[in-house]
């Protein structure tokens, strides 16, 4: 058994490009996915009954099917229904829908934990419905559930490895490409795995810092 990590690292440009794609996909999915989560959490907590039912079905459907099947459905299935997507667009849509569903549940849990008195107090100060939600309910709710949110975003980042299967050129795709050229499969995947680990650690740090700074304040 001999290892040759050099043979893989020679292709560092490919790896770097893969990392850039993984980071980019994750960033987009995080921003849009969280927005979807907030909107759906609001709909589920205080929307009309039919909307609540639709959002509930969306959440349960996504949470009870594998990400890879969602991705395949969007990329391979939808063209048959007339919607043709590039691998990158399909990946973004799949990741956003996936994170959105989990974020809905997470944020809803935070919203439900808001004491009723806070809302009553805000209403008595003549804040309208939207103001109450965005200023009184949402920030403490996000703060409360931020650790769970961070974990979920990391899960989605790691899950993006599957996007390589529809030839989105992210990190796992790069590793696969390299090993198909030099037959150093184990080394290529070890290196990719370590990069993912580093990304996960870095992303956790970043989000723990960014959450209080941008989303709910200290």
């Amino acid at each position: 058994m001999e290892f040759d990590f050099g043979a893989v690292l020679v292709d560092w440009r490919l790896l770097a490009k893969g990392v850039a794609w993984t980071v980019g996909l994750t960033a987009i999915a995080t921003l849009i996915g969280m927005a979807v989560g907030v909107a759906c959490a609001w709909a589920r907590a205080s929307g009309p009954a039919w909307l609540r039912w639709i959002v509930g079905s969306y959440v349960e459907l996504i949470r009870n099917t594998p990400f890879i099947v969602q991705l395949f459905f969007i990329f391979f299935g939808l063209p048959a229904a007339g919607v043709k997507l590039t691998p990158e667009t399909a990946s973004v849509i799949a990741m956003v829908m996936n994170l959105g569903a989990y974020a809905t549940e997470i944020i809803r849990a935070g919203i439900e934990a808001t004491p009723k008195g806070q809302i009553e107090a805000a209403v008595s100060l003549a804040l309208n419905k939207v103001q109450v939600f965005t200023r009184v309910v949402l920030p403490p709710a996000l703060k409360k559930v931020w650790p769970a949110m961070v974990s979920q975003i990391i899960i989605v980042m790691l899950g993006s490895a599957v996007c390589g299967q529809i030839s989105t050129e992210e990190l796992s795709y790069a590793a696969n490409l390299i090993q198909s050229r030099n037959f150093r499969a184990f080394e290529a995947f070890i290196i990719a795995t370590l990069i993912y680990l580093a990304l996960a650690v870095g992303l956790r740090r970043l989000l723990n810092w960014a959450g209080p700074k941008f989303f709910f304040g200290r």
Partner: protein
Amino acid sequence: MVDFSLWDILRNLLMALRWTVVLSLIAFVGGGLVGGLLLFLRLRGGSVMNRAVGFYVQLFQGTPLLMQLFLAYFGIALFGIDVSAWTAASVALTLYTSAFLTEIWRGCVASIPKGQWEASGSLALSFSEQMRHVVLPQAVKIAIAPTVGFLVQVIKGTALASVIGFVELTKAGSMISNATFQPFVVFSCVALLYFVLCFPVSLYAKNLERKSHGRRA
């Protein structure tokens, strides 16, 4: 050109669904056993062991399951062992499951108040007696709901075994879709079957959780 009816597609997918179920059970049972062993090591093995198990958990929770599957597939082969997709998928999913279960269960054991340990210790119970008679009976009750909930993650995780050529529901879906040119129908059916498999488990886990919260309140 052969025409495939919806029933042909569904029947073939149902045949493949078996292997998703079998692989999930292997991962869940194997992961449970390894996870239990790791939990014991973590509680009993001193600070070095504690840290080693912590690192193991971090490793599996911080890397994609897909990479773990690839590494198992190509890694076992390095030892000159001819690996089937079965072996690689079983090994990778067992290790993955064990890391998550040991962490879930550790949280449950940690949630037992310290006083319980101290009280049972002051009654001169040994570690294994404390575990058996005082801590585990309480921890198991707390652990059931999240453990059942995690089963859903395991079932969904088996879908990735398709990538290393394990013919389960997702792989069968890809193959049938290539044969029938009806990807929309096929992948809708695949998603539906996963949903039928996972949703009852999710509901059951939610119910258990509600019950255990009710009991504590």
